[in-house]
């Protein structure tokens, strides 16, 4: 209760329900606001029930249909084209395509325009499809129906888009409001209705709206026949929580407040129907105005890729410059002697009289010609790949939540690879990590701790120690027997000590079976919601047999009486359910019910319990008169009730933060203080939230004296009221007698612990952003294993800009956006923000990746997010498996594309050198068209979609592989340069080898020599083979798809060459009959292809061979281990390596277990030394030796 989390903040305060304070209008100074009406910004006039008046200006307002489309049929082409050509690369290609129509073009226009049209066409198609889906969604929404009053006075179904301002509509239970409405009346007599605003602000609680009393009577269809009213109000604005306006009805003016306004997209709940008049429609509604543009996000990898593209552009400029200068020099000096050209000096590109102009034109020409250095298809293939990756993410069955029937959704596909580089996770707490559901876990009453003392860390540690010793035993089998026996005995000692340590604190002598069952119980889901407590001493009313039952009774009374909750009938069992301000109180009430103290009725001044009477063992009904309730506040940190029981005894029952209670104990009230304190610290370390319970018996006279002071303070009006109240409560809340403490667990969502553990092992730092107070935040930090006792804690406050490297930060006091921005700015690391509510939207939008939890019904966080998960735990698989894969896939894909285009593009440049920079291309135009688009694109896509360095299980077993992405070692600059060099080497080898093989002498037995056509086709064959074999060397995971695409691409070239060559020469140009007649029949062609392919790949192969031999990468070794089935045959080693890989992990469950084992072992080694010394000195030999005369 004490820290009503943000989710519950908006909840109806039940205590206020009693006093009906929540229904009183908020006094936010309505008079001054009313004066604004009619002024600029507050000029809207709505004629309720007279929509026909809104058909003409100036009262013609926008229709109620909403469009989220980006394009219309008319604007699609220009707008989408504009979007496409804002890409620098595309703009370059557009420029070259434009130039290709001029005489400057080295190749046919088609060669340049074709791929551009293809690439831009695919991207535009994607845009169109996406927009089409938006259109369908709009259509769906706009065609929903609502009952609206027609001309004839009847309420008929009308489509949402046909609703106009001024219409009177009737909305039924569980329907959405079609527009912003003025609430006129409801099915309740007092004009109240309940709305759910989840779609607006993510809050699940119901809000109460209330109509004006003047319009209350309009609660039947027929009554609207004479209804006429005029609303004057503010202009459309995005503020969801304000409304300024008035209603002129029956010649009276009533002020309106937000309480009368029903917002579009919120839902009517618990109310049969309401009548309302449309105030704002369509794009004027507050929710539409309120929506902000989600910032577009681009992944780091893509930003770096842009730089790589720039690098390629500079290469392009450089070789174009070389070409241009070379050409000028040739034209100026040599060309004049070439008589076979001398007739052509009219061509401006080869004008010997003006070589600099020719040089410039050649430069332009070269820019076009060498365009193949820029991977034109890269952007589009990345888009396709990411779309497919996103589909795989969406379809992953292991990220499907059975409970909510939802699966992970990649809402934007352009951040897939960013998932593999997340370094900091900023997580919301409530609803994301925790269920916002408290569980009663442990309690300490009168110095005894109940509910077991074993935590999961201890269990895991003991298990680990056992396996460790087994592993050790088997590994030393071969070593000499003497040491073996010694070690074995020591390790058995370890086991015993570990067991004892774990079970220490069980003063209750249970038998071992019960002990085991309790151990196994710990992890089971509790049967009763909010109650996860096992202890035979208290359960099933066993506590009545204990000697300290008086304390027990008082303890349970505090639990059952000191709260603000109300019981709710369950109907099915005799157990009750409870509603209270905070989930903690609910947990207490449920627990006390389990212990036999059922709180079952509350009136204004009376609380009724069904109590278990210790003496009789029967349930008796007891009434307690509630005399005073001293409320909780964040400064008081405690809450008390003063009650009088049926015997007339007056008790003050108090619960509060331990420090506060301990300070207020009576001299004899702290009998169990010492043991209670030690229990308290144990609970806190386990991440439980603790509260101390205390009571005080009051004499009637003392109470009445105090009550008069208190009543006086309460009735005081003025600034000193607070102080007086404070003083009064201090007077009574003292001299307390400590009863004990309770520990409740803010229940973590399923799998959160394991997920955080894995993420921490992956090297991801997790920041918990919460608006809770410090203690709670630390509690939750402990329970998520983000914090350990041996850690130093930093507390980041907003005012201080702390750049800390602590692995887990508990950042307090919300303002998530600023924190997010701070983290991004100062660490420069990739951040992922995850949250579920509207309050997380800012954080989600601000972080590099936004993740929304879709398990709950609220859509705000999901709408703003890039990925939506039904459960927090799926983050593990999303990052460690899919993120890792996508990062590697996209990195490899980009690097390979760079390589591929350099290998191809540079041969064009080399050939230019041999043609004296005349600007001719070696290859047929069509070869150039199909290179990027058909012959090499499919393998790249298969690499980007299907590559797996290691399988998903291994990813999860070795989360540290994820650190490859954190260090960005796959897409480092050295790798980029390496691949560029590889491309240069490949181009050089291919070109030089072919020049030497096919120069001068005949290439066929029939004596023919190769001409340009054949030479080009042969070279092209070599390139196709080389780049496709190169990708086969990169890929580590071959399914039939990869094989099909890679070898299919090679085969496709031959098929293409055959088909193209079969066309009449008018069409096939240089490719006519090329394969069938000339090169195909020449053995030299095939032999040369073989040589060149191998030779061009040899440098890369040698490189990876050296790397695999001398410094293999982790994924490589793990692949080898997996290949040798060592995960099965040498399972111990496999597990050991998994643990070793986690060694540097600072946080997480496993790290906690490690720390626990370390502390065991340290204790043990001390013990062992002493045992050893003792045993050594006890041996007869030692005794005889020391007692020998030598020593005397």
């Amino acid at each position, binding site marked *: 209760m004490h820290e009503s989390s943000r989710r519950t903040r908006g909840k109806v305060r039940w205590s206020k329900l009693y006093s009906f304070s929540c229904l009183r209008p908020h006094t936010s100074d309505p008079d001054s606001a009313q004066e604004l009406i009619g002024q600029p910004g507050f000029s809207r006039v709505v004629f309720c029930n007279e929509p026909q008046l809104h058909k003409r200006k100036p009262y013609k307002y926008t229709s109620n249909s909403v469009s*989220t489309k980006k394009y219309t049929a008319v604007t699609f082409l220009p707008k989408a084209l504009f979007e496409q050509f804002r890409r620098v690369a595309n703009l370059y290609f557009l420029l070259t395509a434009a130039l290709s129509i001029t005489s400057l073009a080295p190749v046919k226009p088609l060669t340049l325009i074709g791929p551009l049209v293809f690439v831009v066409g695919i991207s535009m198609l994607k845009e169109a499809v996406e927009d089409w889906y938006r259109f369908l969604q709009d259509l769906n929404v706009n065609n929903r129906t609502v009952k609206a009053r027609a001309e004839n006075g009847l309420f008929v179904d009308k489509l949402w888009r046909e609703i106009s301002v001024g219409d009177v509509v009737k909305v039924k239970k569980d329907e959405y409001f079609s527009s912003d409405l003025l609430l006129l009346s409801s099915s309740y007599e007092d004009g109240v209705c309940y709305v759910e605003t989840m779609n607006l602000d993510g809050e699940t609680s119901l809000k109460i709206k209330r109509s004006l009393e003047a319009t209350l009577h309009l609660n039947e269809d027929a009554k609207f026949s004479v209804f006429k009213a005029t609303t004057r109000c503010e202009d459309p604005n995005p503020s969801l929580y304000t409304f300024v306006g008035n209603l002129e009805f029956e010649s009276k003016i009533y002020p309106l407040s937000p309480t009368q306004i029903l917002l579009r997209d919120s839902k009517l709940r618990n109310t049969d129907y309401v009548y309302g008049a449309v105030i704002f429609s369509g794009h004027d509604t507050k929710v539409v105005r309120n929506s902000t543009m989600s910032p577009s996000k681009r992944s780091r990898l893509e930003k770096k890729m842009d730089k790589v593209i720039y690098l390629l552009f500079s290469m392009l400029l450089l070789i174009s410059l070389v070409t241009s200068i070379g050409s000028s020099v040739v034209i100026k000096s040599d060309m004049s002697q070439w008589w076979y050209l001398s007739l052509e000096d009219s061509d401006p590109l080869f004008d010997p009289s003006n070589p600099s102009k020719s040089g410039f034109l050649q430069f332009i020409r070269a820019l076009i010609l060498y365009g193949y250095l820029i991977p034109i298809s890269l952007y589009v293939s990345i888009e396709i790949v990411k779309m497919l990756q996103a589909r795989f993410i969406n379809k992953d069955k292991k990220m499907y939540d059975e409970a909510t029937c939802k699966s992970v959704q990649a809402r934007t596909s352009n951040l897939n690879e960013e998932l593999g580089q997340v370094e900091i996770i900023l997580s919301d707490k409530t609803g994301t990590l925790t269920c916002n559901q408290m569980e009663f876990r442990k309690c300490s009453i009168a110095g005894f701790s109940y509910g077991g003392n074993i935590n999961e860390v201890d269990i895991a540690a003991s298990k680990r120690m056992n396996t460790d010793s087994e592993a050790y035993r088997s590994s030393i089998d071969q070593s000499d027997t003497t040491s073996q026996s010694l070690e074995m005995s020591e390790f058995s000692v370890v086991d015993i000590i570990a067991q004892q340590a774990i079970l220490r604190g069980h003063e209750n002598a249970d038998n071992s079976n019960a002990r085991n069952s309790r151990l196994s119980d710990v992890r089971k889901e509790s049967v009763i919601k909010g109650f996860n407590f096992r202890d035979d001493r208290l359960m099933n009313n066993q506590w009545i047999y204990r000697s300290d039952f008086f304390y027990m009774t008082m303890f349970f009374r505090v639990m059952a009486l000191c709260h603000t909750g109300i019981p709710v009938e369950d109907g099915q069992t005799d157990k009750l359910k409870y509603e209270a301000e905070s989930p903690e109180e609910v947990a207490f009430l449920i627990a006390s019910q389990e212990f036999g103290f059922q709180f079952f009725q509350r009136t204004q001044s009376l609380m009724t319990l069904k109590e278990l009477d210790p003496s009789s063992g029967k349930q008796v009904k007891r009434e307690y008169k509630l005399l005073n309730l001293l409320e909780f506040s964040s400064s008081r940190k405690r809450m008390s009730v003063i009650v009088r029981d049926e015997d007339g005894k007056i008790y003050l029952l108090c619960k509060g933060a331990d420090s506060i209670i301990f300070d207020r104990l009576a001299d004899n009230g702290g009998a169990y203080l010492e043991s209670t304190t030690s229990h308290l610290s144990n609970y806190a370390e386990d991440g439980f939230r603790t509260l101390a319970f205390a009571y005080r018996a009051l004499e009637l006279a003392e109470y009445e004296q105090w009550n008069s002071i208190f009543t006086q303070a309460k009735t005081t009006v003025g600034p000193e009221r607070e102080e007086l109240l404070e003083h009064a409560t201090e007077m009574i809340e003292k001299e307390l007698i400590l009863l004990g403490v309770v520990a409740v667990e803010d229940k973590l969502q399923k799998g959160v612990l394991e997920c955080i553990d894995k993420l921490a092992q992956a090297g991801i730092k997790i920041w918990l952003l919460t608006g809770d107070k410090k203690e709670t935040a630390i509690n939750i930090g402990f329970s998520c294993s983000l914090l350990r006792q041996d850690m130093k804690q930093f507390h980041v406050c907003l005012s201080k800009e702390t750049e800390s490297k602590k692995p887990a930060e508990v950042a307090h006091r919300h303002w998530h956006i600023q924190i997010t921005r701070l983290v991004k700015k100062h660490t420069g690391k990739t951040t992922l923000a995850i949250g579920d509510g509207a309050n997380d939207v800012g954080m989600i939008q601000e972080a590099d990746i936004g993740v929304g939890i879709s398990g709950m019904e609220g859509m705000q966080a999901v709408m703003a997010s890039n990925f939506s998960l039904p459960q927090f735990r799926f983050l593990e698989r999303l990052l460690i498996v899919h993120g890792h894969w996508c990062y590697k896939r996209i990195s490899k894909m980009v690097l390979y594309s760079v390589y591929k285009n350099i290998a191809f593009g540079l041969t064009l440049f080399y050939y230019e050198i041999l043609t004296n920079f005349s600007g001719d291309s070696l290859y047929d135009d069509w070869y150039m068209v199909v290179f990027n688009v058909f012959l090499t694109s499919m393998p790249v896509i298969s690499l980007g979609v299907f590559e797996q360095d290691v399988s998903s299980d291994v990813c999860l077993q070795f989360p540290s592989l994820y650190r490859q992405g954190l260090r960005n070692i796959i897409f480092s600059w050295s790798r980029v340069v390496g691949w560029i060099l590889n491309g240069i080497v490949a181009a050089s080898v291919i070109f030089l080898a072919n020049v030497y093989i096919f120069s001068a002498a005949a290439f066929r037995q029939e004596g023919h020599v190769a001409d340009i056509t054949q030479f080009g086709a042969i070279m092209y064959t070599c390139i196709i083979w080389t780049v496709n074999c190169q990708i086969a060397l990169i890929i580590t995971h071959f399914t039939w798809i990869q094989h099909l695409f890679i070898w299919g691409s090679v085969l496709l070239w031959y098929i293409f060459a055959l088909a193209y060559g079969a066309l009449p020469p008018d069409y096939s140009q240089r490719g006519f009959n090329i394969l069938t007649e000339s090169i195909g029949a020449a053995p030299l062609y095939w032999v040369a292809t073989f040589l060149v392919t191998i030779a061009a790949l040899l440098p890369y192969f040698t490189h990876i061979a050296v790397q695999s*031999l001398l410094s293999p990468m982790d994924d490589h070794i793990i692949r080898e281990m997996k290949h040798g089935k060592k995960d099965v045959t040498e399972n111990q080693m496999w597990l050991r390596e998994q643990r070793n890989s986690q060694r540097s992990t600072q946080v997480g469950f496993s790290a906690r277990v490690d720390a626990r084992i370390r502390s065991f072992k340290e204790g043990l080694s001390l013990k062992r030394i002493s045992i050893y010394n003792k045993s050594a000195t006890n041996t007869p030999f030692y005794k005889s030796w020391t007692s020998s005369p030598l020593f005397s």
Partner: protein
Amino acid sequence: MAMSPLLDDDTTLFDVNLDGTSTSEDGGYEPIPAPKTKSKKPPPYSRFTQQELPACKPIITPKLVIASFTFIAIIFVPIGIAALSASNKVVEIEERYDRECIPPIYSDHILQYIQSVGTDKTCTRRLTVPKHMKSPVFIYYQLTDFYQNYRIYKSSRSNLQLKSKADEGSELKNCGSVQTVGDEPIVPCGLVAWSMFNDTYSFSVKDKALIVNKMNIAWESDKKGRFGSDVYPKNFQAGGVIGGAKLNSSIPLSEQDDLIVWMRPAPLRNFRKLYGRIDVDLEANEEIKVEIKNNYNSYGYGGEKLLVLSTTSAFGGKSKFLGIAYLTVGGFCFLFAIVFAIIHRFKRRDIGDTAYLSWNRSPVGYYIK
């Protein structure tokens, strides 16, 4: 949504993109989709969608590396030897004659000599057959420093015109200044045809003439597909400046094998072109007398002219490069295989050696690879 006003002035909500993709993807307001009545079924299981297709996962192990290098060496060395021996079996006679065929008196006025119509350009060379040359012996002329691949040269032709008589006047603008004489189109037009090689050779052994067979020196596809049988040379070399060879205007282009061969531009500046074939064996040490008409002006651009007689193997003419390249690559692979074997011997790394895992190499603050 409501949080955006918190943004500071100094930060921009919208990144400026290099690629200029839309700055907003989700376009602000999103309507709430209608609740789906039917419960969504879990995604169906398939090995494809779960990315669990059976896959072969080759890994590069030291043994595989050594084996592949050895394997390549084993394949490459024999191919190299075969290619070298094939090249060695080819007998080739190269005779440069551009200098020798200039009469000494013209040595200072070479251009005048070569361009003059009146001078006698006959030149006799004697070649000795070094080894037995089995027929067919191919006759090539070789030009050096001649840029047939120069773009404006190469493209100075009209393919349409070459193909059919109906298109005689088509695509003439490609031919630049060699388009027309008066209003009549030149057939074949363009620089390529205009600059056609026109030296001729005649051979004799012991005063007995060797027949030069000009059949099949051109590609069938050219003769059938590109050069029309109804297209006859017209106005050729009739313009102001004479380039190279003249053509017999009574023979259709499809029969003009020398032209067809010439019209296939060579990829490099030093090239050979097939001149003809001698269909008899030439014995070793035989002396062949070649009578050359030294017409072609290679002097203008400073190139050489060579006459080449060569037999062929399955790999074509005499070229040591292929064999040497195969042997070199094979040799390197063999060397690498040995080096890797040595490294592997002394710095052994077993498959899946966990000692190489980054977290085992430097236990504290390890560097993940």
